[in-house]
């Protein structure tokens, strides 16, 4: 076994969740079974981000497009954290954004939260028992 590239790229929680959900669905028609480990990861992702089952590639793409257009200074890492954490409060934005006060106004932060809400939210509550 040879590791050609140890870190070829990063995946969002949504991409991993979609992959593992597809493995679960296809395992019934093939001998490839979804391991309990994969199921644990899938359940964990669903529990910390209840919106995941309701998201789509198109909703993520449109969210990222809007964020990049309105806030071009956001780094790839910050955008990844937006997509993974799905922040709903200013406190969470301060966790994601480095040097927040000097880069963004209160209106900017409100705008970011409204973009998250309009593109990526659901009304489900967190199932903490699976975390």
């Amino acid at each position, binding site marked *: *076994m*040879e*590791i*050609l*590239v*140890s*870190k*070829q*790229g*990063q*995946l*969002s*929680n949504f*991409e*991993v969740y979609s*992959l*593992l959900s597809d*493995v679960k669905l296809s395992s019934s028609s*093939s*001998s*490839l079974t979804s*391991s309990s*480990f*994969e199921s*644990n*990861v899938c*359940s*964990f*992702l669903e*529990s*910390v981000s209840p919106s995941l089952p309701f998201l789509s590639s198109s909703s993520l793409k449109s969210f990222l497009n809007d964020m990049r257009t309105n806030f071009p200074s956001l780094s790839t*890492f910050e955008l990844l*954290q937006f997509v*993974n*954490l799905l922040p709903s409060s200013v*406190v*969470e934005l*301060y*966790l*994601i954004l480095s040097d927040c006060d000097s880069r963004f106004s209160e209106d900017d932060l409100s705008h970011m939260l409204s973009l998250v809400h309009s593109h990526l939210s659901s009304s489900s509550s967190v199932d*903490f028992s*699976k*975390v």
Partner: protein
Amino acid sequence: MFILTRIEERMSIAPEHFNKSLQDAIQEHVHGQYSAKFLPQVGQCVSVYDIISSTAPKILPDKCEYHIEVVFRLVVFRPLFNEILTARIIAADPRGLRLSIGGFFTKVKLLPHLLQEGTTWDALEKIWVWNYEDHRLYMDVGDLVRFRVQAVHYDSVGRMKIHGRVNESGLGMLKWWM
């Protein structure tokens, strides 16, 4: 939280898999070998992402199986420095706290100097307590904590360990900020 790792491997496919398509046989082999395994100096494998390429299968003299070289990508759990994660406290003692991420990764530590300022160890109740203004806020075993990845280490055999910190606003027990 997750990265893609690209790997090349020479694998043997046994006769009982000859009735499957080559793609299925490779997929099953890689899945069986790597799902839930740890990759030294990389991280915890989660699943196969895709099969990129494979050579034509070769049957060697005196062997019943066929050999093939495959390039594939794996989904690997490996958090990034400064990333924000949620985990459950599974143990606490004067040396700090140990956390579990989803039950599938348990080598996460919060050391005392990286807890919220004013957090002390209560030796009687055997619990870490954040003394914030007039409040005593407990870090109960079994409850959820949000932390920032402070460092990702690898031990002598390449197993990953994560150190986190909660010494900023918005971090610590989820119940404190809800």
